[in-house]
């Protein structure tokens, strides 16, 4: 083993990103909890963690930039650093989404409770599961776990669409609960974004581990193609042989 210092720097970068991931995951869970129990003190915690996430985002970007400039990484090291940069941005956005949800919870504080046709806790559980699983895939460098996250995104998208449909109907028909419905709609949208960021993280893990770019791949039936972006490994020896013998 050579390049011990470089390997140590890669390990440090991964550790920093895991701290960031822990904060982002905690922020979204707290925001969901704040919604569930309508507790503004939890909203304060979310606001504070957003500041820490923003600071860490800059630190991680700088560390990744230093490694690109100083070490000229190649192949799996290069893919790892590019993935870290992208995942870093997605985690920061997860923090933003958590903040956005907690802001909605604050504004709902003054409103009367309303029975709305949307299951925010179920959607939140699914989105948070996607974040947790995508980060587990990153920690373990497991492309299979990452692929399982991709298949979960459609369910959250469908729930968000259904929420949009039912909540806009409520807004049109029951004006006295329109503000509550609008808040719920915005929370639904934030959770859908969280699921999108988890999907991005999973795609980046696949890129890092397998070198396959699976972004924006849908099969003809509209679902995800499980083998998207995977090109078969070339038969090196066969390719190297002269065409005509």
């Amino acid at each position, binding site marked *: *083993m*050579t*390049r011990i210092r*470089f390997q140590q720097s890669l390990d440090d970068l991964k550790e920093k990103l895991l701290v960031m991931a822990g904060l982002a995951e905690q922020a979204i869970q707290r925001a969901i909890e704040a919604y569930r129990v309508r507790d503004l003190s939890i909203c304060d915690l979310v606001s504070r963690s957003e500041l820490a996430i923003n600071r860490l985002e800059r630190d991680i970007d700088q560390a990744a930039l230093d490694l690109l400039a100083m070490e*000229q*990484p*190649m*192949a*799996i*090291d*290069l*893919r790892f650093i590019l993935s870290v940069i992208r995942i870093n941005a997605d985690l920061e956005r997860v923090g933003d989404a958590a903040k956005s949800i907690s802001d909605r919870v604050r504004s709902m504080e003054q409103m009367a409770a309303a029975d709305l046709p949307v299951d925010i806790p179920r959607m939140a559980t699914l989105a948070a599961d996607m974040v947790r699983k995508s980060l587990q895939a990153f920690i373990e460098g497991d492309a299979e776990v990452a692929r399982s996250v991709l298949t979960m995104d459609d369910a959250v998208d469908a729930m968000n669409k259904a929420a949009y449909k039912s909540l806009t109907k409520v807004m049109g028909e029951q004006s006295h609960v329109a503000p509550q419905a609008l808040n719920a709609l915005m929370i639904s949208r934030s959770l859908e974004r969280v699921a999108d960021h988890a999907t991005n993280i999973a795609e980046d893990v696949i890129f890092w581990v397998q*070198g396959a770019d699976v972004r924006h791949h849908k099969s003809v039936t509209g679902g995800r193609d499980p083998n998207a972006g995977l090109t078969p*490994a*070339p038969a*090196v*020896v066969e*390719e*190297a*042989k*002269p*065409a005509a*013998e």
Partner: protein
Amino acid sequence: MGVGIEVANLNAWYGTTHTLQDINLNIPANQATALIGPSGCGKSTFVRCLNRMHETNPIARATGTIKIGDLDIYKDAKPVEIRRRVGMVFQRPNPFPTMSIYDNVIAGLKLNGYSNRRVLDDTVERSLKNSALWDEVKDDLKKKSGASLSGGQQQRLCIARALAVDPEVLLMDEPASALDPVSTSKIEDLIFQLKTQYTIVIVTHNMQQAARVAEKTGFFLNGRMVEFDSTHKIFTNPSDKRTEDYITGRFG
């Protein structure tokens, strides 16, 4: 214009040491192909087989087929003819120290019996322009010796000397490893221009250089070609773990 190179079942030995084992690959015409690998892996031996320099060593031998265009170089060609068609540039610039810049460029032509002054003048100008040295030496062609130039200029003079005999293939064995970064950039820029006219095979220990200049890259290890693919593939997502370990600096 450059021609493609087809290598089939190439094996080479130094004495009893089997230095190249069953090498098969197609080197495309008018592109730069980089050969990488740790010291002693066989890449320089491979390049020296491409112009039959390997066999100039009395204990060395090679078997297999190498076709430079239509020419089967181990079957129906004389070494002198091969070396006219396959130019070579070495790690350390090696101009003839007592000869002028002009005489350095035409040394190969004179060896081949050319003496027409106008042809020689035209060749010197064309070769020095192609090696991006003309503007720096055009006023001192016969006044200065090759050895009076800087290291980077000497290497470009050697490239001009190789180009003067109008080859189809240019072999470069670590052509910039003894040069400073600016001279290295000039050589790399030159490779970009030259590959429109010649097929270039470059041996390098500099991974970034291979990634910058070559369309194809081959990785040698212990006398075997482990992987040969597009440079993009080799440096972003190689198929073989050994290639990845080497280019990421895990060994070698």
